[in-house]
């Protein structure tokens, strides 16, 4: 069930955001319309609940669920990355872009390193779980930076409004 919801979400939300990102690099100083802050939390809860509730978990279920959670975290990271870009000037955006590019390469390597199996059905489960864990760490980091930027912007706005 969550797969259908997730696919629709990706099509309707992320495609315009990606397109917005490309346009912004050319001419626009803003990336995300004010107040647009999509949430994937309910979908995430649904998957986690299903994982916890299922009595007899087989390998296919575990791997597909893990892959779903990893994809979801990756989508959340993408959203936060775009939202953070919104608060940066041109130089900072370039820096974040390069930083994220390097991190993406490192993520693949780190996730691969975490796999012990030499093939078999456990291998993709090990990979997707490591992928999710690494992505969650990065997500927390970018969320922190986003919160800081948002707070600073709000403070600046209040200060500007108070000035005669």
């Amino acid at each position, binding site marked *: 069930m969550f797969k259908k919801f997730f696919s629709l979400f990706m099509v309707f939300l992320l495609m315009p955001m990606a397109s917005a990102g490309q346009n912004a690099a050319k001419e626009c100083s803003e990336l995300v319309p004010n107040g647009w802050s999509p949430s994937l939390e309910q979908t995430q809860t649904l998957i986690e609940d299903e994982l916890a509730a299922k009595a007899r978990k087989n*390998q296919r279920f575990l791997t597909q669920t893990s892959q779903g959670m990893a994809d979801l975290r990756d989508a959340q990271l993408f959203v936060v990355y775009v939202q953070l870009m919104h608060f940066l000037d041109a130089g900072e955006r370039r820096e974040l872009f390069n930083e994220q590019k390097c991190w993406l390469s490192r993520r693949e390597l780190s996730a691969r390193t975490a796999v012990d199996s030499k093939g078999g059905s456990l291998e993709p489960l090990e990979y997707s779980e490591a992928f999710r864990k690494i992505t969650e760490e990065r997500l927390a980091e970018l969320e922190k930076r986003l919160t800081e930027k948002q707070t600073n912007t709000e403070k600046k706005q209040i200060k500007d409004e108070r000035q005669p």
Partner: protein
Amino acid sequence: MNLTAKQKRICEQVVNVFETGTIHGKYGSISIYRDGPHKIRQITYGRSQTTEYGNLYELVQLYVDANGTFSNQLSPYVEKIGVTPLVDDKQFKKLLRDAGRKDPVMHRVQDDFFDKRYFQPAMAWADKNGFSLPLSALVIYDSFIHSGSILYFLRKRFPEMPPAKGGDEKIWIRQYTDARQDWLANHQLTILHATIYRTQCFKGEMARDNWDLSQLPVDANGVDVFGD
């Protein structure tokens, strides 16, 4: 390893349950995982999970040669498998799914193929290392399906030698199963803890001394396996 047809079926059915939750496996099952070359997404197909950049080419070629119901429609895809990404090709995936669900020829091709690719190598490893008991065959086959082999780092975690080097078969299998369970149950990737239903099943069969797999059913993750 001289298994009877029934003992071999028990091994296959137990592992089918571990993998898919069903005794006969899911011949038409398709999953997409990020485990292709350079970790790109790829198709994983069939009863025992063959991959787009692994052995799917060979499996589909065998099916095309066997003149199954969907062989003509799958034929043009053979030369593309592993060369052109087919992970988003809806028609290809539908044909694979339909062949696996509806065509007994695909079932037979997969049974033969997976026997050659997974069961025989596992039994060759067992023979080479001096194992002869049916429950040992199940434990070893399961490791080949689950982790691709008997992982070397696990062998280093227990002292018993394999029978070919003078060790005791039952002690080796017990210690190996314990080491495997310990690894899975305490893995830093916590979702792996949920996979110990496999080793728990083996430990249950050892506890009732079912080394010849004659006491049926075998309780595989809550599903009764009779080997019929």
